[in-house]
């Protein structure tokens, strides 16, 4: 059976196609203003890679923002529900799955079968995490991809006021003026975001294993900050950005069987 999941992220739309439960292809496109166009682009990319046609897919489940905006999706699931499903599939021992993307952060606690038990979503305090790293990389004049590796070279912890984005931004500027090494600033930025995210996740209570997914999981600096902040091992799957889409595809498969 062939199923698919579409995840509408704030930045990118992601598609995962499953053939008999195995990932056959992935596709992505910028979300832009028109969700329909983005969904079409991303699905075409995935279909092409899988050498399939749209009507060969038995069931499509969507997740993320703008649910209900594409007619070829049969139904929907929340991101936390999708993450729970996919997370446990990727790492059977995972019980806490933390998802940090461009605009949102969320976390879900689940059982061994990937059913969600509790979740936190959409907290202001952790919002805009990915976008924040981007803005700060511009302020530091370093490539976004370099933020992570650079952060690992930090020699000293510079404390940062992590209470609100606006304050933090002006603080980064003062740090630059004070000639603080860029590596230390990058590390401080990651620590600050990690702290906001962790603060939110603590509401769930941290149950191991912890799996980190979403776009920011590519950033090794951020992952390191999360490990230090949580004081436990933090696992990152391959293609962390596609985890919600993967979960949606898995759920599509379950629902198709029903």
């Amino acid at each position: 059976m062939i199923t698919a999941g579409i995840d509408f992220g704030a930045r990118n739309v992601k598609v995962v196609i499953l053939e008999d439960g195995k990932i056959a292809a992935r596709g992505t496109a910028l979300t832009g203003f028109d969700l329909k166009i983005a969904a079409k682009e991303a699905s075409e990319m995935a279909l092409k890679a899988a050498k399939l046609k749209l009507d060969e897919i038995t069931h499509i489940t969507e997740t993320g923002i703008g649910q209900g905006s594409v007619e070829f999706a049969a139904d929907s699931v929340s991101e936390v529900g999708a993450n729970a499903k996919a997370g446990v599939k990727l790492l059977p021992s995972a019980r806490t799955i933390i998802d940090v993307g461009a605009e949102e952060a969320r976390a879900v606690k689940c059982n061994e079968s990937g059913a969600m038990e509790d979740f936190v979503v959409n907290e202001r305090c952790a919002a805009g995490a990915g976008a924040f790293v981007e803005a700060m990389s511009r302020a530091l004049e370093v490539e976004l991809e370099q933020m992570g590796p650079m952060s690992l070279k930090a020699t000293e912890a510079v404390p940062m006021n992590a209470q609100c984005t606006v304050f933090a931004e002006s603080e980064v500027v003062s740090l630059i003026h004070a000639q603080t090494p860029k590596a230390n600033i990058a590390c401080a930025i990651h620590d600050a975001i990690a702290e906001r995210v962790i603060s939110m996740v603590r509401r769930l209570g941290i149950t191991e294993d912890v799996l980190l997914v979403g776009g920011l999981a590519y950033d090794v600096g951020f992952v390191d900050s999360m490990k230090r902040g949580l004081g436990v091992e933090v696992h990152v799957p391959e293609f962390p950005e596609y985890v919600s889409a993967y979960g949606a595809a898995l759920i599509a498969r379950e629902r198709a069987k029903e």
Partner: protein
Amino acid sequence: MFDKFKEWYDNRHDYAQAWKKRTGGKVLGYFCTYVPEELLIAADILPVRILGSHEAQDVTEPHIFGMFCPFCRDCLAQGLKGRYDYLNGIMIAQSCLHIRQTYSSWVKHIPQEFSYYLYMPHGVQTPHAYPYLRGELAVFKEALEKWMGRPISNKNIDRGIEVVNKNRQLMKKVYEFRKQENPPLTGLEAMYMVVSSQMVNKEEHNRALEEVLKELPNRKLNRNTGTRLMILGSEDDDTEFVEMLESLDSTLVVDDHCTGTRYFWNEVEPQEDRLAAIAARYIDRPPCPSKDWPERKRFPHILQLVKDYNVQGALVIQQKFCDPHELDMPALRKMLEENGIPTYFLEFDVTVPIGQFKTRVEAFLETFALPDLF
């Protein structure tokens, strides 16, 4: 000569633990300066005020909703992180809602032998508050006696009153020096002095104060006094901020803070009924804004300080989300400005962006340097 106070402040936990070991006594952590330390001292307890540590933290989110003031969250973080594990007990005197949550969560999640919520009235302007608080103190005294396993005699209470009153008198004397044209102490030193008094044995603190008072008359600071500022508003022990401020050609000469004058300004006036005497002291003290109604009695008091200390400008600071102070702020600023005192407003968080605040305060201070036109 003020180093002792800073040392106490910086090493508050070491101090309390050493005190405990040395005396075998009990240490009680408290929130809010409406707690009657006289009775605690009478029971041979060391009262220590729980304050934050001004570090970013991620442990209070499950316990306190983010719309409450950073101070109450910072305080709880200290408890959750185990920094106050040596406390034998914990108490609050009823004040604003925010800090009550710190107490509520603390009692629930951090084990202790003794906890007490003192129903300090809010209606401090009604005459019925005096007998009411007297009654509350009697109930509290009983609870303390039960906990300590021995009665608190009138003699004990007299000693409690005496030592706390003395502390108040001495600190007020030190504050007198701040009236001078070139005060021989900085606002930062004064802040360390008052806040450390909330953390250490009062007799020791009194001895240190007496030392300071001996030397102060001959002390000269090698610095410019600059603009004479008052600071007022929410809880504030942000020493880093004060240090920055006083590096900018200005001096803090007085304050209206619960980490400053509001803590020690008035004394217990002895009367036969000791508890009534203590009650009256707390009812009549310079109020926290949440108790300052129907009239705003705090305002004439502040104005008097402005006059006595020859204040030129006021920094009104407020902990983010601090409702009690937010509700007074517009009227307070209006009152000060109508009396010729320019004000400048700053919002504090657990940590403040020092660089940004510096630029802003500099701009405020520049307004005082402008030449008068005619």
